[in-house]
C-alpha cells in the first residue's frame, strides 16, 4: 500500500483530519488518566484490614445514664460476659475504634522520652485480652495481654501503657533489624511502653491520603474506656452466624441495660457495611471514571464512523474510477484502514504528550500519583484498535462502490 496518495488526499480535507486526530488525542489523554485513577482507587479500596471481615461486626454503644466510672466499668464487664455467652458469638472486646471507621486516635511515637520531633506515627487501639481473637489478627511473635494487665482509662485522662502489642509494620519501622519484641518506645509520655507482642496486619482507623504512610502502623493498648460518652464493642460471630449474632447482640445489650444508645441507622455495622462506607468516595470515583471512559470511547468511535462515512460519500466517484482502473475491493478497504491508522497515529502521538501533561497538572492540583506509562500504552492500543474497528463499516461500504459509479455524473 502506498502511503503517499493517502497523504495527498488527506491534504484536501485538513480540517476533518485535524479534528479526528484532535479528538483521538484528547480521548487518549482523558481515558488513560481515568483508567489510572480507577486502578488507584480500586487498589486503595482492596487493601486488607487484617481482620476476619466476614464474621466481624461493630456496635457503637453510647451511654445514656450519668454513671460513675466504676458503674460504667462494671456495666462494660457485664455486657462482655453477656455477649460471650451468646451461642452465635465467638468473641467480643470493647474498643475505642475499629479499622476503616473514618477517624480515630493517632499518637506520635518516639524512641526516647526527650525527643520533640516524632520518630513516626501510630494508630491507637484499646482493647482487652480478647481483642486479638475478636479481630482475627495473627500473633507473629510474643504473647497476648493477660487479663490482669488490662487497665482503665477515663475521659481526657491518659497514662502510658507499660505493655503494648504492635503491628509488624510499626515494629519494623522502629526496629528495622527485627529486634522489636521486648524493646520499648514512648507514646507521647515520659513512661516507656514495652512491646510484648507483634501482630501481622491491622489497618488504620482512617484511610485518608494523609496517613497512607502509617496505614498499617498500629499499637494496641490493654485498656478499657470507662468514660461517660461510650465506646465500641467489636464482635466476632461464629462462622456463618453473622446474621444471627447481629440480631442477638443488641437484644442482649438492651436486656442488660436500657440506658444506652445504639443508633438505629449506623449503631450496628457489619464489617462489609463499614468497608462500603469507608470507601464510598473511592468507589464513586471509579464508577464515574468508568462511565466517562466508556461513553467517551463510544462517542469517539461514532465520530470516526460519521466523518469517514461522509468522506466515503464524497469520494464515491473517485472510488468508482479507481475500481474501474483495476483496484480490488480489498485495495479500497485497505486505503481507508490505512488512512485511519495514519490519522490515529498522529492523534495518539499528541495524546501521549497531553495525557502526561494532564497527569502532571493533576499531580500538582489534586495530589494524585504519577501516571504509570502502562496506562498510556493500554490507552494507545485501545484507541488504535477502536479507530480501525470504527472505520471498518464505512470502509466496507466504500469497497462495495461499483466501478459503474465512475461513469455517473454527480
Amino acid at each position: 500500500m502506498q502511503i503517499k496518495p493517502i497523504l495527498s488526499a488527506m491534504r484536501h480535507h485538513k480540517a476533518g483530519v485535524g479534528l479526528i486526530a484532535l479528538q483521538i488525542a484528547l480521548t487518549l489523554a482523558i481515558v488513560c488518566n481515568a483508567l489510572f485513577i480507577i486502578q488507584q482507587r480500586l487498589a486503595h479500596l482492596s487493601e486488607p484490614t487484617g481482620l476476619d471481615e466476614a464474621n466481624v461486626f461493630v456496635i457503637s454503644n453510647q451511654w445514656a445514664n450519668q454513671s460513675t466510672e466504676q458503674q460504667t466499668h462494671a456495666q462494660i464487664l457485664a455486657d462482655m460476659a453477656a455477649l460471650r455467652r451468646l451461642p452465635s458469638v465467638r468473641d467480643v472486646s470493647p474498643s475505642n475504634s475499629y479499622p476503616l471507621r473514618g477517624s480515630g486516635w493517632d499518637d506520635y511515637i518516639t524512641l526516647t522520652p526527650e525527643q520533640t520531633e516524632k520518630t513516626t506515627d501510630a494508630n491507637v487501639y484499646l482493647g482487652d485480652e480478647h481483642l486479638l481473637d475478636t479481630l482475627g489478627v495473627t500473633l507473629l511473635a510474643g504473647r497476648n495481654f493477660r487479663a490482669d494487665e488490662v487497665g482503665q482509662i477515663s475521659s481526657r485522662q491518659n497514662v502510658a501503657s507499660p505493655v503494648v502489642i504492635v503491628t509488624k509494620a510499626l515494629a519494623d519501622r522502629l526496629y528495622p533489624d527485627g529486634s522489636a519484641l521486648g524493646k520499648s518506645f514512648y507514646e507521647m509520655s515520659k513512661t516507656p511502653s514495652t512491646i510484648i507482642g507483634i501482630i501481622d496486619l491491622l489497618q488504620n482507623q482512617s484511610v485518608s491520603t494523609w496517613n497512607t504512610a502509617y496505614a498499617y502502623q498500629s499499637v494496641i493498648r490493654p485498656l478499657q474506656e470507662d468514660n461517660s460518652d461510650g465506646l465500641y464493642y467489636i464482635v466476632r460471630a461464629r462462622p456463618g452466624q453473622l446474621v444471627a449474632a447481629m440480631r442477638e447482640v443488641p437484644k442482649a445489650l438492651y436486656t442488660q441495660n436500657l440506658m444506652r444508645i445504639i443508633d438505629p441507622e449506623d449503631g450496628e455495622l457489619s464489617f462489609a457495611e463499614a468497608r462500603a462506607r469507608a470507601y464510598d468516595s473511592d468507589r464513586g470515583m471509579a464508577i464515574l471514571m468508568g462511565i466517562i471512559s466508556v461513553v467517551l470511547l463510544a462517542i469517539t468511535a461514532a465520530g470516526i464512523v460519521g466523518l469517514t462515512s461522509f468522506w466515503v460519500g464524497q469520494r464515491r466517484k473517485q472510488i468508482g474510477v479507481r475500481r474501474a482502473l483495476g483496484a480490488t475491493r480489498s485495495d479500497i478497504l485497505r486505503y481507508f484502514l490505512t488512512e485511519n491508522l495514519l490519522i490515529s497515529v498522529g492523534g495518539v502521538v499528541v495524546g501521549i504528550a497531553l495525557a502526561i501533561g494532564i497527569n502532571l497538572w493533576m499531580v500538582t492540583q489534586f495530589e494524585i500519583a504519577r501516571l504509570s506509562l502502562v496506562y498510556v500504552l493500554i490507552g494507545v492500543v485501545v484507541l488504535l484498535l477502536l479507530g480501525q474497528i470504527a472505520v471498518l463499516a464505512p470502509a466496507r461500504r466504500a469497497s462495495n462502490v461499483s466501478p459503474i459509479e465512475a461513469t455517473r455524473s454527480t
Partner: protein
Amino acid sequence: MLVYYFELGLRSLRRNPALTTLMVMAIGFGVAASMITYSVFRAVSGNPIPGKSSQLFTPQIDGWGPQQNLQGEPAEALSYTDAMALMRAHQASRQTLLYAVHVSVLPGGSRSLPIGANGYAVYGDFFPMFEVPFRYGSGWSKADDDGRAAVVVLSEAFNHKVFGNIDSVGHELTLNGHDYRVVGVARHWDLHPRFFAAFDGNSFDDPSDFYLPFTRAMDLQFDTYGRNSCRGNIDFSTRDAWLRSNCVWAMPWVELDSAADAARYRQFLDSYAADQQRAGRFAWAPNVRLRNVTQWLEVEHVVPRETRISLTVALGFFVICLVNTIGLLLAKFMRRAGEIGVRRALGAARSEIYKQFLIEAATLGLAGGVLGLALTAVGMLGVGLLFQPQIARLAHLDISLMAMTLLTAIVATVLAAFYPAWRAAHVQPAWQLKSN
C-alpha cells in the same frame, strides 16, 4: 427570516437522522456529565455565609512551636488556655468559642429509649454573628454566658422530634441528665460547607440539633465530641491537666467589621503571643494567623478532592464531545456546498449563511440540551453512587441548573459551529456552480 432558518435547521437535522442523533447524544452526554459533577461542586464550594464571610475571622495562635506545628502553620484550633485568654481580652465586636458535644435525650420521658443528639457548645454571640434565623425565641445573652446559665437553643427539626410542632420556648429539656430551659428554636439552618465545623472534618454532616452555653458545658465537664489534637507529653491524670495542656480543640471565631479592625486584631494576636513568649510559655517568636471564612475554607481543603477531579474530568469529556460535534457539523455543512453556492450566487450575503448555519447549530444545541437535561435528571438519582452520601444529598437539580444545562448546551454548540459555519460562508459560488 430567523424562524425560517430555524425551520430549515430542523429539516436539515431530520434529513440525516444518524448523524443528528450522534451529535445530539454527544452534546447531551457531555453537558449532562458536566452538570451532574458541577451540581455537586456547586453545593460544596459555595460561600456558606455570603453577607459576612469577610467579617468573620478565626484567629490561630501557634502554641506548639516550630518543631511540632503543622509545617510552620499554627494549629487549626486553640488550646483552652489561649481560647479563654482571647475571650477575656474581648478585642472584637463579637466573639465566640465553640466545640462539638454529644448528649443523650429521652424524647418521650423516662420510659422511652434514649436517643443521641449532636450539638455545639457556643457563646451567646454565636447566633447574631452567624445570622442564625429563629422560629421562636432567640439566643441567650452575655449575662447567661457569664452566669453559666442552663439554657438551650434547639433546631427546628430537633424541637419537632422532642416537643412536637409547638413553640417550646420556656419548656424544660433534659440533656445528659441535666435540665435546660429552651430559650430559642432556630429555623432550618443548614450551612454548607459548615465552615465552623471544618476543624472536626464534618463540614457536610447533618445540621446540629442544639446549642448550649460553652461556659455551662465546661462546668458540666462536657467532653469534646470533635477533634482534639496534642503535642508532646499527654500523660494527664485529671481533666484539669488536659485543660492546661497544649491540646487544641476549641474553635474561636470573631466578628471584625472593617479592615482596620482586622488589622488591629492581628496586632493584638501578635502582642498576645509576644507576651506568652516573654512569660516563658512559648519558646518561639509569635506565629499567628487571622483568616476569614473564605480563606479558612481554602486552608482546610473543605471541597473534597473527588469533587474537583470529577468536575475537571467531566469538563474534559464535554470538550471532546464538542470537538466531535465540530467535525460532524463540518461534514454536514460542507455536504451542502452546492446549495450554499446557489444561495450565494443568487445574492445571499455571507452573514446570511452564517446566520442560517449558526441557527441550525443552536437548534441542535437545544436538542442536545433537552437530552442533557433528561440525562442530568437521571444522573441526579445516581449521585449517591458516585459521591459520599453527605455530599450527594446536597446536589439538586433546580431551576438555575436546568437553565444552565440548556444554555450551556446551546452556547457551546453555537461556538463549536463557528468554524464549520465560517467554512460554509466561504464557499466559492462560482466554483460550486461550475462543478455542478
